[in-house]
């Protein structure tokens, strides 16, 4: 099953340059200019003014003018479901924000929230500017690299069933764009409480804009990995492991939070709000129905319903696995493990949600839940500091879930070998690339805040603001 089966002979590249398409389109230069504006804080109005002129000149035809040859059921219902799915994936960003904030200390909460809302904004704009083109553009190098020009443009037929039987061009874009920002958000959790805000924003922009879409193209854009028989239904590898590699790179280069592994055996820094963390996990779980369910890329009842069942059972089994193992190991039922277990189950099930049986989904989830507990303990022992468990959840379970397709899939075309190839390929680009970006940032504008800032908290230091004004909070950890 292809991620994005294009049925129309949509010529992506040329139209953007031409710019005379009926449905607007973003001019090549407009968007990156806007993004540069964010990062450098410059010239927003200038860029806006300039392209305002361009935009009005090309505003000739009504958007939905000739987009209705015949609206098949698949097209109308598929489109509805994918847009609902896109919204659900959007909610996951709130989930991430809550989870990360909840599992870190109160004095860094504003910083985390700021990072999360910024990532959504920057990630989406960057993806519109270059990512979508890199991921689903024209194959320029034998399945290794794609490009169709800057910006998004549906062309003549993009908004009709000629583009795809199940959804129009813009739906395709928005669904993919919601996914893209996720990869950067995953990194956010692992580097929390010590990374410089600017450095993180730049990292995210580059990671979402360049690294994520290139790897995505290899498989979902029908590149070489797809040809090699690799299967990743909704992104255990392409989204979660890629983000996880970024998280690992960040955690390694930054080093642990001040005092985390000092004084012999080190200290646990307790998250400041378990309700916030729980809200985050429930919302992520909720959004995951769109993440996985939407990845059916149509409203086919049989597939959709199977995906819902495997996703739900996987998550439940993840909770059971993580709770059982951690209760057994620590003699206490640890809420943070239950929460991570749910996510572990979800990440694990993501690669094969449409091609395994419900029974297998339970097994995959339970193992995922156990894996995450072991992962958290191991990272601790290795003195890699990951405040929210992003690496065990997204990287390790992402790998496990991808491999599990090779073991449990009911589709004979899926082989463990191809799965391992995909895992390795993603690792081979994502990890070094993330390391490289972080390293360049470290050498230039610096990656880590001062120890002083870490002590008083990034909220006061970077934002001059407290998350809970007036509340008496012990700042001793």
């Amino acid at each position, binding site marked *: 099953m292809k991620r994005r089966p294009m049925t129309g002979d949509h010529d992506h590249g040329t139209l953007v340059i031409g710019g005379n398409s009926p449905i607007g389109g973003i001019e090549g230069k407009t968007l990156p200019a806007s993004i540069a504006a964010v990062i450098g804080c410059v010239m927003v109005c200038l860029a806006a003014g300039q392209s305002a002129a361009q935009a009005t000149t090309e505003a000739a035809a009504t958007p939905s003018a000739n987009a209705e040859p015949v609206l098949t059921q698949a097209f109308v219902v598929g489109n509805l479901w994918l847009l609902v799915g896109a919204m659900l994936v959007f909610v996951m960003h709130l989930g991430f924000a809550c989870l990360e904030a909840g599992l870190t200390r109160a004095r860094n909460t504003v910083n985390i929230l700021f990072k999360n809302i910024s990532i959504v904004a920057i990630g989406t704009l960057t993806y519109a500017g270059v990512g979508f083109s890199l991921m689903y553009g024209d194959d320029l190098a034998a399945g290794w690299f794609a490009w169709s020009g800057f910006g998004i443009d549906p062309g003549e037929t993009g908004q009709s069933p000629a583009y795809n039987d199940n959804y129009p061009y813009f739906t395709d874009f928005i669904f993919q764009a919601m996914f893209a920002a996720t990869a950067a958000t995953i990194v956010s959790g692992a580097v929390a409480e010590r990374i410089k805000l600017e450095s993180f924003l730049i990292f995210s922009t580059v990671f979402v804009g360049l690294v994520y879409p290139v790897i995505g193209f290899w498989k979902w854009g029908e590149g070489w990995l797809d040809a090699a028989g690799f299967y990743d239904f909704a992104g255990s590898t392409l989204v979660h492991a890629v983000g996880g590699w970024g998280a690992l790179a960040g955690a390694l280069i930054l080093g642990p939070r001040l005092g985390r592994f000092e004084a012999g055996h080190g200290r*646990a820094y307790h998250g400041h709000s378990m309700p916030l963390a729980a809200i985050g996990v429930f919302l992520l779980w909720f959004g995951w129905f769109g993440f996985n369910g939407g990845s059916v890329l149509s409203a086919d009842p049989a597939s959709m319903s199977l995906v819902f069942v495997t996703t739900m059972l996987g998550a439940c089994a993840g909770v059971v696995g993580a709770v059982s193992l951690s209760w057994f190991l620590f003699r206490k039922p640890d809420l943070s493990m239950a929460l991570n277990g749910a996510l572990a189950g979800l990440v694990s099930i993501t690669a094969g949600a449409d091609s395994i049986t419900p029974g297998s989904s339970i097994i995959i989830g339970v193992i995922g839940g156990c894996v995450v507990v072991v992962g958290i303990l191991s990272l601790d022992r290795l003195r890699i500091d990951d405040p929210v468990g992003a690496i065990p959840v997204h990287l390790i379970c992402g790998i496990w879930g991808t491999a599990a397709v090779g073991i449990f899939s009911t589709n004979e075309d899926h082989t463990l070998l191809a799965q391992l190839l995909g895992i390795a390929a993603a690792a081979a680009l994502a990890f070094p690339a993330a390391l490289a970006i972080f390293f360049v940032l470290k050498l230039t504008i610096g990656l880590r805040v001062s120890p002083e800032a870490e002590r008083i908290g990034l909220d006061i230091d970077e934002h001059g603001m407290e998350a809970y004004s007036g509340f008496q909070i012990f700042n001793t950890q």
Partner: protein
Amino acid sequence: MRLVIAYIRPEKLPEVKQALFKRDVLKISVSNALGCGDEPTIYEQYRGRTSEVDLHKKVRIEAAVNESFVQNVVDGIVEGAQTGEVGDGKIFVIPLEDCYRIRTGEQGHDAIG
């Protein structure tokens, strides 16, 4: 005049207040505190790591009274706060040199009540 400071178990505050009121000690101030004493250490778990917590939740009471009332206050607090288990807390009595009522500017013994 004396300033009596006491650390008690949080859940005993209502009883202590009642016991003090019964003895005509109507003005007190209360704040939140953590205490480290002989109580057994609590072990907190977080993501597989155990931390020892030796700071227990306490409530701190402050009451400024005339000399003649000190015993009353002490008795009241003991009555209300005693469970007999380790961790019941302490009472400290400190000399109080002067006292002012902000509302009226009154000073000394008159201001205390």
